[in-house]
């Protein structure tokens, strides 16, 4: 009974639901038990180092690679049921998958026709797709004459011509300038606003942080984290930080007891180069901070304070310092990022 209800719920759901995807090549387990859900109007970032299984996962969702097990539902329809689901998916490959010697318009017409479009509908869709990516005035030109950024935008437009409900973009901004990248981000935000369910595969953390509502992190073929950005940061020991320069060194042990403070360390002192490794060491000895600070002129000190929530806890720290009679010369805030999250989760850099 419960299974029936679950199946019905899956079938009624819109967007993308991929469940327990598995893929082996011989003895190599490339994708293991991967599940991803993307709702309409949501962008989900798929992150992971090379060889993590992202492309294979995406290929299984698109029907390019057959999954050993698991299921993919698009708008409530099983992808195994035929071509109907393929018409609802649009894949933007990492490579510039377009014909350089066909005009932009001809490229769109070709792939539109493969998705069953013809006549006026095909014509209007090609016009809309080119307009969305800002290439209307270059419709009759061949991509061979385009800049890298324009080719990337055309690469996306080709995928949009059949108006898919689910968009999968595999590193769509590789090798382009910041201006073109911003233009693509604008396009994606527009598509998101139009209710598209988007999977965005990338290596660039700042892209995922800017665009994605949720992040799925893969490593060695498995999902190692999947949540909203805010919730993922909470998994970090120091997700948000406050750096303070003050005239006198406060009592760091007392500071650590302030509400919302999870840690407080001496970041640097004048005339002494900070030891980055030491400061990053969560097992540091507070006593050692005091010793080090006393060893030098204590007129200015920089303290790095880790907080639960920067927006609410920063004020409490500043009030506490004021009560302690410590004059604050400079305040700066910082956040942990996905790089550090990945490092925390796997012990490796994302680009390893």
């Amino acid at each position, binding site marked *: 009974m419960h299974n029936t209800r679950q199946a019905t719920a899956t079938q009624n759901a819109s967007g993308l639901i991929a469940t327990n995807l598995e893929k082996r090549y011989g003895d190599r387990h490339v994708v293991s038990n991967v599940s991803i859900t993307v709702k309409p109007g949501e962008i989900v970032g798929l992150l992971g180092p090379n060889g993590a299984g992202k492309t294979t996962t995406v290929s299984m969702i698109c029907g390019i690679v057959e999954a050993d097990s698991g299921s993919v539902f698009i708008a409530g329809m099983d992808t195994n049921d035929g071509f109907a689901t393929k018409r609802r998916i649009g894949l933007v490959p990492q490579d510039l998958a377009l014909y350089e010697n*066909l005009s932009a318009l001809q490229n769109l017409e070709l792939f539109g026709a493969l998705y069953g479009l*013809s006549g006026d509908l095909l014509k209007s869709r090609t016009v809309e797709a080119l307009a969305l990516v800002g290439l209307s005035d270059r419709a009759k030109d061949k991509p061979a004459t385009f800049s890298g950024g324009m080719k990337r935008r055309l690469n996306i437009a080709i995928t949009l011509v059949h108006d898919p409900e689910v968009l999968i973009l595999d590193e769509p901004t590789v090798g382009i300038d910041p201006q073109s990248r911003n233009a693509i981000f604008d396009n994606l935000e527009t598509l998101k606003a139009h209710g598209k369910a988007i999977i965005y595969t990338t290596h660039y953390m700042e892209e995922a942080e800017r665009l994605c509502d949720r992040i799925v992190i893969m490593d060695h073929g498995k999902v190692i984290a999947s949540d909203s950005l805010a919730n993922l940061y909470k998994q970090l020991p120091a997700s948000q930080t406050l750096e303070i320069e003050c005239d006198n060194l406060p009592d760091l042990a007392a500071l650590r007891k302030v509400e919302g403070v999870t840690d407080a360390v001496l970041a640097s002192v004048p005339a002494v180069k900070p030891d980055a490794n030491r400061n990053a060491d969560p097992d540091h000895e507070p006593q050692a901070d005091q010793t080090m600070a006393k060893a030098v002129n204590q007129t200015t000190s920089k303290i790095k304070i880790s907080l639960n929530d920067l927006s609410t806890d920063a004020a409490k720290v500043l009030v506490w310092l004021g009560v302690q009679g410590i004059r604050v010369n400079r305040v700066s805030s910082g956040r942990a990022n996905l790089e550090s999250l990945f490092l925390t989760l796997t012990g490796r850099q994302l680009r390893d």
Partner: protein
Amino acid sequence: MYNTVSALKALVRKDIILFFSNRRSLLITIAAPILIAAFFGNLMSPKSATISKVPVAVVDLDRSPLSTKITTALAADTAFDVSTPPKAEATELVRKGKLRAMIVLPAGFGANAPRALFSGGDNKNLPQIDIHYDPSQSMVLGLVRGVLSQHVMEEVSQSVFGGGAAGAINPVIEDLRAQVAASTTRPDLKRDLAEMFDSIAKVQIQVKAQAQTNSSGVSQPDGSKSAGGFSFSLPFKTEAIEVTSEFDKKYNGYAQSFAGMSVQFVLFMGIDFGIALLLARRLGLWKRFRAAPISRATLLGGSILSCTLIATFVMAIVFSVAMAVFGVRVEGSMAGFLGLIVTFGLLTATFGLLIAAVGKTPEATRGLAVLATLLMVMLGGAWVPSFLFPDWLQTVSLAVPTRWAIDGLAAMTWRGLGIEAALKPILAMLGFSALFGGLAIWQFDWDE
């Protein structure tokens, strides 16, 4: 169904636009076979063959009337371009390849050759004519032997049986009579031979006298000047008649060369087609195709269909030029001809697909594919007609699809055969297409 048809149309349209958009490649695909076929066709046309005489030297060490006559007869032969340099110089010219052969008439040939006519095959007394030839042109040797034999036999027979000066007995006959008398031949045979020589001498005297009368202007009773004229010559004459589509049609060497070159360059186009599929895979285009709602059959079918159409188009254009400029005609069945070029287009498409299926990278695949194609066209008779191959190679080359294509095209053009002569090549090429296509589908890597 509608989507399959529209997808097929889109795929074919795409390939055709791409083919025509690359004008340089288009020019090479069409112009190259025309230019090369024109060159080979010109070499192989009958007109060229009559112009090209075999350069031969005759070294006359005898300087007798008989050897002089033989030299003159050889020089007059249309097969030879005869020169008469000294022996050392002629040898050097043969060595350098300037002359194909040198014929050396030995001293004493004029005296010994008539006697040898009645030697009963006694090799010890036969005069020997040496033929020095260029080993790189060994096929000329047979021609030289044949033409030389003809003229030597003609002149020696004439000298023996044709008679000497008017009113005089032929000295050759006198010499033969003395030779027989001195021999140890049985007396009855000696007597018979002497009677034969007498008869020959009698006829010769009468013929010479008659010839003198004719030359002085005295007419015969019937008014003929040549009545009673008599000379010895070869007992036959020959006339070469080309067996082509019709009795009065000339063989067109261009038909054979255009068949060979169009097959070669269309197969090269097939390689480009296969490489393009590999490049599409590398560029991620294949992912787009695979992600689209079209079947594998539609995807491969579209590629095969477009390549077949383009290959057929190229063949048609090349043969149109051959017909318009070089006089090539489809003397046989037009339906058979069209069937052959369409089937060869299909063969080219499946060959290209096989290349895409077994090839790993475009760079590595191109070299191997070109080598395989060159071997196929060479064995198929594109460069040298297969009828010039040794017997064993003619048999082996039946396992090569290009042999069927070229033979079929030759049958429909200059041989002027009916559609039944096209059916076997068409069936053979369909078989090869099925084989190539089957292997390609079996080997095709669908996973990305």
